[in-house]
């Protein structure tokens, strides 16, 4: 469904991605793991058009989208939940959700989707009229994901959804992701929390200083010596 073909990307002169190739099949949950500064977020930003790539191609359903502007990409069904819970702090929860559906016109469908999505996150239903900045960190992350879903994504890009959250909440959010996947949304997940990500992924890539070093099924990576040492902190 989504394919990155030898994508290279630069910030000024510094290379952030070096010929990265990633493939996300329809209906799967694929994760990109890696340490700080490995290029994970850059990867997502290049997909959603927030950064222009220098070389390579990004194919979505067979079409190259690497020259398309961010708004158009959202309309195609690629929706990013940005890092650090970038909700709109001064809008209410309900307004934040409305913003997610900015590109959609069918009011009736939007309302139906809102009911469905609030069904996943009862706490948001409760706080519908609250200003978003008054939510807790976990609730804000839920709002960010719910807002992403409001855009009716074909593929959802998640940037570090576990960032700064308590383990219990991370667990909760990841189980939502599995639920969303099971309902047919393709997900590309970027995570530092490798252990949690591997638990729910169908396929994973490990990114190291802009290069894909290892990729494979979660079982394979969990048994890989380097991954165990560097990302899972397990001494052999």
């Amino acid at each position, binding site marked *: 469904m989504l394919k990155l073909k030898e994508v290279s990307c630069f910030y000024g002169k510094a290379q952030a991605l070096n010929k990265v190739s990633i493939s996300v099949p329809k209906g799967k949950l694929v994760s990109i793991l890696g340490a700080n500064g490995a290029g994970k977020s850059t990867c997502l930003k290049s997909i959603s058009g927030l950064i222009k790539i220098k070389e390579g191609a990004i194919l979505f359903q067979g079409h190259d989208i690497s020259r398309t502007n961010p708004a158009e990409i959202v309309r195609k069904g690629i929706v990013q939940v*940005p890092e650090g819970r970038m909700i709109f702090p*001064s809008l209410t929860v309900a307004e934040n959700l409305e913003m997610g559906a900015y590109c959609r016109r069918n009011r009736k469908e939007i309302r139906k989707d809102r009911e469905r999505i609030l069904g996943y996150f009862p706490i948001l239903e409760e706080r519908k009229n609250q200003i978003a*900045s008054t939510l807790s960190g976990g609730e804000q992350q839920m709002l960010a994901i719910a807002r992403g879903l409001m855009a009716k994504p074909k593929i959802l890009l998640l940037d570090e959804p576990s960032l700064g959250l308590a383990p219990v909440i991370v667990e909760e959010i990841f189980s939502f992701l599995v639920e969303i996947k099971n309902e047919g949304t393709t997900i590309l997940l970027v995570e530092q929390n490798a252990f949690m990500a591997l638990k729910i992924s169908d396929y994973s890539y490990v990114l190291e200083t802009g290069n894909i070093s290892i990729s494979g099924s979660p079982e394979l990576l969990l048994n890989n010596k380097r991954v165990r040492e560097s990302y899972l902190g397990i001494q052999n």
Partner: protein
Amino acid sequence: MVSIQNNHKKNLTRLSFLAIIIVYFASPFLLSEYLLYLVVLMSVMIIVAEGLNVMIGFAGLFSFGQPGFMAFGAYIGAILAVHFKWIPFPLIMLMAGSATAVLGLIIGFPCLRLSGFYLAMATFGFSSAIFQLINYAKPFTGGYEGMYAPSPSLGSLHFGSTRAIFYITAVCVVCVLVVVRFLAGSRTGRAWKAIRDDEIAASSMGIELRREKLKVFAFGAFLAGIAGVLYSYTIRYLETSYFDQMGLPLFLILVLGGIGEVYGPVYGSIFMTILPQIMGGKFSQNMSLVYGFTLVIFVLLAPHGFYGIWYRIKKTVPAGFNIRAYLFKKESQRGNKD
């Protein structure tokens, strides 16, 4: 029970709104000529400030171009009225407003690559440039000597009295407030607020930042243009220096009322009309000193203006734009990270 109380509350708000509007429209019969004149000036300021409110308060675009836009609108209106006497005044206002909106687009096009203080500086520069251009275009504008501005006319009818000007202005104020109120809850208005809150998140919602920002600029400039024409009707004589001094009071109106609140500029303008009347005696030569102090005090202690004070009494969180948080946010937090 709760819903009955809520309904009761809603009715009360509606009633008080109605009362305010009735008193407002009856003011020509209640006030002296001079006080009515002040009310007209106040109403004009509400319109410009509302434009600035949409720019800064809704969309987070710090534009200091409003005085320049207002002057441009005023001069275009006056020049049209002098040379084409047959054009009815509503059309003149519309034409001047539209011309100013186009100017807003032209200025916005390069300026909107900037944000925050840089945008403020660039628009401030453009605003000053507009004054210079007006002064250079002496054959049309009278240059530094200024020009006479005709009263609004409709065919052979002339509306020269303060009372007539008041009603024209009052209708405009009500229209502007209704439009902005509607805008605040609309899809477009929400998109503008989203841009203010977070540009990256907004663009990942599919908002086309450039186009929306240009719309904001055009809208703000349009209101300034209309207000400019109304201003020319009120004072009947145009000089760029009138507009030149308007920046600080205008910004003060916004901060006092509560940036980002639909009715903020109304409260701000009322206060700013009263303030010089009280302080005028002793400080008439140093009004900017008074303005400056008031501004600093409000930004530090009541960043949401009168609205914020009211919110604090009601113990709810204000939804509007926190100017203090904005000004003191670290550059790294605001900028493009990664």
